[in-house]
């Protein structure tokens, strides 16, 4: 069963590489006599990738101790990981809407709580002060035009920047 799980990754990459190999053949090439086309190198690389996947699949199939080669062997905290990934992907999704300051405070609160910070006061203080420090460094010192948010949130971010005297 574990061997099968270990084969999923290489098998998926193999299929993707085969698809990309076909796509490489459809590149709009105007051939120049005596020169290799722009599809030559990617195709060579994709052949290497497919060959490596086959090698890996053989390795997994031959592995007598599946735990060593066949795939992940350490126990996973799946709900925690899924929440972590959702937060990591939600962070750039929310920033253009809510603006960086508010998104960052929310992200820090949620992520620190997820990793194990329990007490509310240090949690809030760290998230707020940390965000203020980041804003000072990156907006005031580095002049990085961080996302301000959309609609009313943009007004809120600008108000916040003025309050912190960084705008």
């Amino acid at each position, binding site marked *: 069963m574990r061997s099968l799980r*270990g084969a999923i*990754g290489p098998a998926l*990459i193999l299929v993707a*590489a085969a698809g*990309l190999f076909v796509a*490489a053949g459809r*590149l709009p*090439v105007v051939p*120049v006599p*005596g*020169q*290799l*086309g*722009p*599809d030559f*190198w*990617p195709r060579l*690389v*994709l052949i*290497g*990738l497919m060959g*490596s996947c086959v*090698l*890996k699949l*053989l*390795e997994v199939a031959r592995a007598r101790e599946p735990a060593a*080669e066949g*795939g*992940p062997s*350490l*126990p*996973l*905290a*799946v709900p*925690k*990981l899924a929440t*972590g*990934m959702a937060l*990591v*992907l939600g*962070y*750039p999704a929310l*920033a253009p809407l809510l603006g960086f300051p508010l998104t*960052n405070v929310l*992200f*820090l609160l949620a*992520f*620190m*709580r997820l*990793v194990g*910070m329990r007490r509310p006061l240090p949690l809030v203080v*760290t998230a707020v002060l*940390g965000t203020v420090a*980041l804003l000072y460094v*990156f907006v005031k010192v*580095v002049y*990085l*035009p*961080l*996302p301000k948010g959309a609609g009313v949130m943009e007004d809120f971010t600008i108000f916040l920047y003025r309050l912190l005297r960084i705008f």
Partner: protein
Amino acid sequence: MWETLGNLGAGFAASLEPLNFLMILAGLAIGIVAGALPGITMLNSIVLVLPFTYLMGIVPSLLLMTSIYIGGVFGGSITGILFNIPGDPMNVPTTWEGYQLNKKGQVRLALGMAIMASAIGGFLSALILTFASPPFAKVALTFSTVEYFAVVLLGLASVVVIGQVSIAGALISLFAGMFLGTIGTEAQYGITRFAFGVNFLETGVDFVTVLIGLFAIGEVLDQLSAVKGPAGGDAATPATARAQLPSPRQLWALRGSILRGLGTGVVIGAIPGTGATVASFVSYGLEKQVSKHPERFGTGVLEGLTASETSVNASTGGAMIPLLTLGIPGSGATAVMMGAFLLHGVQPGPLLFSKSPHEVYTIFVGMLLANLIMIVMGLIAARCFAQLMKVPEPILAAFIIAFCFLGAYALRNDMSDVWMTMLFGVLGFFMRRYNLPIPPLILGIILGPLAEQYFLTSMVSHGNDVTVFFTRPVSAAVLLTTVGLLVWPALRWRFGRRRAYEVKKA
């Protein structure tokens, strides 16, 4: 010789300029702290500062990164000796002996010896780098695209050394990286490859986003996913620890270990794809082999600690040789530094010595200075580290991701780079879980486009005649080395299996 000394003098003056000197100090501090904190590797910290080096010139950027490199490879030994927690895999051999010395009540000597061995190893390797690189670069100037392709191929083939878990896994990672390097507008014909209508892919995949995502975010997610067991143990965790530098007599008594560690570190560091981890294990093994009392290793032997610690820092100078003279990164850290060169529009390679001697020699002097300053910084760090270790993991993890966001956004002020970083972070987690090594992917994305460029140019110049790679002596020799590098692990694996079979049979 006189020219080199003159350049060194100018480099010395430049590295003492306030900003440059500040970058050396900051880099050492960041490196030692990052190297010592388990979960934040030296490589991660170099990656995290990379986007911010946009704001500086090439010299302070490189001084910052090389100092992080130097401090980072040493830092992990502090926590290894104090808490039996090596900050990086390269500090494991140091921990084997250092922690045992700690348990014997010799923690001050163990810390002091680790600091001195690292500083000596790093300083001497930087000296070797300074005097060996220019003549090597002169030879490299005679290379054409044919030789360069062979050298790049050697760099790519080094994945068999990097990917120690599974060669097939390392190759998948390498070819995936090389494929990512083909995305975007192609140089020869000007057509866009594999963008599939996505605008930001037309300019290619920025390797900085890949680096930050795979290393930093992938690592945070990996640690987050771990089901934590009961912490603690019987580790002696002193609230404060002072290092006691060894006396000249103690150092002289360990001169053999220091020299062996230095030689191993410089040579292994200079071989593309190896780096400090391989150097530390090889030098520890070598020291055990030459010792009159190998059975004592693992019980707190100063020779083992000294050799491994010297080699770890000696590998930093060694790894810079192929980067600066050939433009081939010899390790993950130098791959990121190559990124810093490219970000500033400077191509590392033999021409660097004639085009930018000022920058090169300032970096050399910076490395020499950083290794000397590290003695003081190491002493301070050893005292403070018991306190620094108390930075709560939740704060560390959350702020690493926040810095990744800002670092990726700072590249082009574009959220698409942040998205790429986060997505590569998730990919980095799965790569770790499925034993796919990450450094080969980085090697592929950086060296892949170079390999394509050199190969296609060679083909155009030589009428698509591939035999040119075998008829030119330097190219043929490099390709032969590449074949050796590829065949050796297969032979070792084969013989290893046979030996295991014979042992089992017996």
